[in-house]
């Protein structure tokens, strides 16, 4: 008995799981919160590289939103920045080189969006200057692109509050929450308000939008073709973080205040209403609300590169030293250590003996030896103060002494 019940349940489960295959024409491509996404490809750049080596820079650019960047009106740009102390680009004049983004959005032809492998200029790692063992530097790539989010949904024109019709209605106007519409900025809530004006209803919609992507909203522009170039202008930067919105209800344009929404904490609000006319009648009905969001967006990625020393240092001196071993540079001149100690006996190798008088590299070896021989040797403070014998304070063959 139990076994039979189990088999019946299993059959029911399998049957309900099957359903009609989704038609590509019925699939909604206006979903998701992504637009243009960037990704470094494999080892370009590498995580670790030797000084003096060069590496290519390639970025996988994908358009995972619903808007197509055709390269003519809607065109994005990829730019990069690097630290010239560690890296040198191999292409000439790359200070302001930009690469265009031309990619299709999600559609029947590109169900998951379009992608391209973009090669940026290759770089050579500079030789490490100084004594640093393992410096790190960062490569930063960003993409700027104009984008649209198209929102469309049925809303209810609710006249029941006015007509007080007690019959069952087709629909009721209430706030709706939304997730995404195929772009990084999305309409997240629509709250309808029905205003009675004479015998008609003038609907208004309180619309909430939100930046749901991982990047930043820049300033909206009038000329889409120059959307990204204009962003570097200091005046334009003051208008960053704004989205332009336009809406219509059953092809009737709505008046939206504000038209340019400033995002606060990633969110923004506007109120769109019918300026004239209205909807009358005694029954509720569904109408289509279309909202267009226009904005310029920026997304970025970065990678840390570790630079490894590869070049064994040469035989040159690690420190600039123009002087001989018995000399020290003092006031840009090389002077004998004996004379140096005479002037400044604080140097470690000088010793207290120099405090007593005038020393110089005045003695030859036999003179020094004769001075030593005359000194008594039964005193523990044996060293003859008149001749410093045994350490190199003067050039070869000369000794630091005080002639009496």
């Amino acid at each position: 008995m139990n076994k039979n019940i189990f088999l019946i349940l299993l059959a029911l489960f399998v049957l309900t799981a099957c359903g009609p295959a989704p038609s590509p024409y019925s699939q909604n491509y206006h979903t998701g919160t992504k637009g243009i996404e960037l990704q470094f490809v494999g080892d370009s750049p590498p995580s670790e590289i030797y000084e003096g080596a060069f590496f290519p820079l390639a970025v996988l650019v994908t358009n995972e939103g619903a808007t197509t960047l055709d390269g003519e009106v809607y065109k994005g740009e990829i730019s990069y920045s690097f630290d010239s102390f560690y890296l040198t680009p191999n292409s000439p004049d790359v200070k302001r080189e930009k690469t265009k983004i031309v990619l299709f959005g999600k559609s029947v032809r590109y169900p998951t969006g379009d992608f391209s492998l973009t090669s940026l200029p290759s770089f050579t790692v500079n030789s490490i200057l100084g004594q640093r063992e393992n410096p790190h530097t960062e490569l930063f790539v960003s993409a700027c692109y104009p984008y649209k989010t198209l929102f469309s949904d049925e809303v209810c024109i609710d006249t029941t509050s006015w007509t007080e019709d007690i019959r069952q209605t087709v629909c009721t106007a209430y706030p709706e929450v939304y997730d995404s519409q195929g772009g990084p900025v999305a309409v997240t809530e629509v709250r309808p308000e029905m205003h009675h004006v004479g015998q008609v209803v003038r609907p208004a919609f309180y619309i909430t939008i939100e930046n749901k992507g991982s990047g930043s909203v820049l300033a909206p522009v009038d000329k889409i073709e120059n959307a990204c170039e204009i962003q570097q202008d200091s005046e334009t930067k003051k208008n960053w973080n704004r989205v332009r919105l336009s809406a219509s209800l059953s092809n009737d344009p709505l008046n939206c205040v504000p038209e340019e929404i400033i995002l606060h904490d990633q969110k923004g609000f506007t109120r769109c209403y019918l300026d004239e006319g209205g909807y009358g009648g005694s029954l509720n009905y569904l109408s289509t609300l279309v909202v267009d969001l226009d904005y310029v967006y920026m997304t970025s990625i970065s990678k840390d590169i570790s630079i490894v020393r590869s070049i064994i240092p040469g035989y040159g001196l690690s420190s600039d030293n123009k002087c001989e071993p018995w000399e020290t540079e003092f006031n840009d001149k090389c002077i004998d250590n004996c004379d140096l100690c005479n002037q400044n006996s604080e140097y470690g190798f000088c010793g207290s003996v120099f405090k007593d008088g005038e020393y110089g590299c005045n003695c030859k070896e036999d003179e020094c030896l004769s001075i030593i021989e005359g000194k008594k040797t039964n005193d523990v403070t044996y060293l003859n103060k008149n001749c410093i014998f045994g350490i190199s304070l003067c050039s070869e063959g000369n000794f630091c002494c005080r002639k009496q």
Partner: protein
Amino acid sequence: MAIKDKYQDYKNWNEKRIANSRYKSLQKEAYKADKSRLKHERAYHDSQSDGYHGGEEPSVSPHLLLFFAAIAIHIFLDVYLFNLRRDGGSIPLMLGAYIVLTLFAVLFVYKSGLSSETWTIAGISLAAFLLPFINKFVNANWVTAVLILVPVWGIYLMFNPGDSTFLAGFGKWYLIIVLILGVYALLTSSIVNSQMGALPASAPADVSSAVDVIKHFFIDNTKNLGTSILGLPGKIGSKINQTFSMSYFTGQVEQNEAEPLGVYLEDLRAAEPVFYENNTIIILANLRGKSFEGVINVNNYCFINSGNKRIANGKVIPFNPELFYDESRPIECVIEDNLKKGSYTVTLLSTFDFPTWGYVEYTFVDRETRLAYYSQGKDINYELSIPRKAITTYTNGPVSIGSNIRDLPIVMYPDSYQNFGVTVANIWPQGHMDTLKTLEVHVPEGIMLENCLPKTGTTSPGDNGYTIYTFKLETPKDTFSTELCEMKFVNSDNFLNGNLKVTKTFAIKADYRYSLEKTINIRVMDI
């Protein structure tokens, strides 16, 4: 089992336990009574044999005798004759001495027969014999000094003085005094080290050197501490003066995976444990150096000072070795001056020219970008992958380089400037900077330094569009030197070049001559 039976079992067990305990305590009392009786019998016997009357206790306790015997073996045999060595002929002799001591303790002092007390006594002797072997692993004079002052048998007897009241009192005070002196020695050494420089370097275990260490710790250190305390107000004053008149910037050292950069004197040791009058003194050491920039030229000196007075100069072979990349060379200090019997401190001094580099990365954004992210409620550091702070990283070596620690990003305001300061300071306590030859600041393209204090620098072109500013500063002996400039943009409108942010690295190079010192104690004996 029935409850009644259980109770009966417990009762039997408990009664048995009480009976055993009573039996043991009766045995102890009997033993004590026997001991006392024997003592009195002996006293009576002694008084009968040698005319001594009164039955008084023997004047010297056996424990005290044992203590004196143990101390005699420790001081005269182990310390004085064999210098706490355990090699060659010293092993059988010391072993024999401690066996004799053990037998004396077992048979005449404790009379413990084959009891556990005998094993304890044997263990004490074994520990006394084995402990000096520690010198083979820990080669330090202070260890030897501890072994001299804290003998194993002596300590055991002080804690277990038996019937000797003298030993009990003496032991208690001796241990307290040794503890106080030990703490005092540690404290004075650490204070003196921070003020004055390095401790005497470790030498082969040598009793006379250990005695000198004790003298050094308690007498010389106190003198030095006194000097440094008296000199503190002056040093603090000069440091305060310098700090108020000059900023002090810090950085962090780069952690090297392998050996750190710089020059090091290692493994300083005397060629012989003791030297003799009119003989050549030879000190050995290893000179190790590492640099990524080429050869390090080192000049080596050695000498003997007595206080501030130079009493002997030696020569180092080789005097002027070159250390390439990552190299270690043995060096030898030879002092041929005739030294009289006594204890001396030999100093090895190495001077070398060395560069220390510091690097700091600044990220710049313009004001509008900063405001735009702020108005979006976004963290610009996270969004643009900018570190929170710019901290200078300097390479290993005897000198540190520091710069302003800033919050990043640096916002570019038109017609304004930022301060850019660099501090060079000595960080090795065992050496000092003889001369700070040059301070170079490599400034990236688009930025310039102006109105520098205290010295104006000269400029020269560097690689990749950099400009090198070279300064000649005063050499910081015990403190630091700082150079402070105004950092301005050559053309702030074009600086970002269309980028949201720009990261620029500043490189700082301090080129200096450094003197590194290490000392070792030696002893010269008469022939």
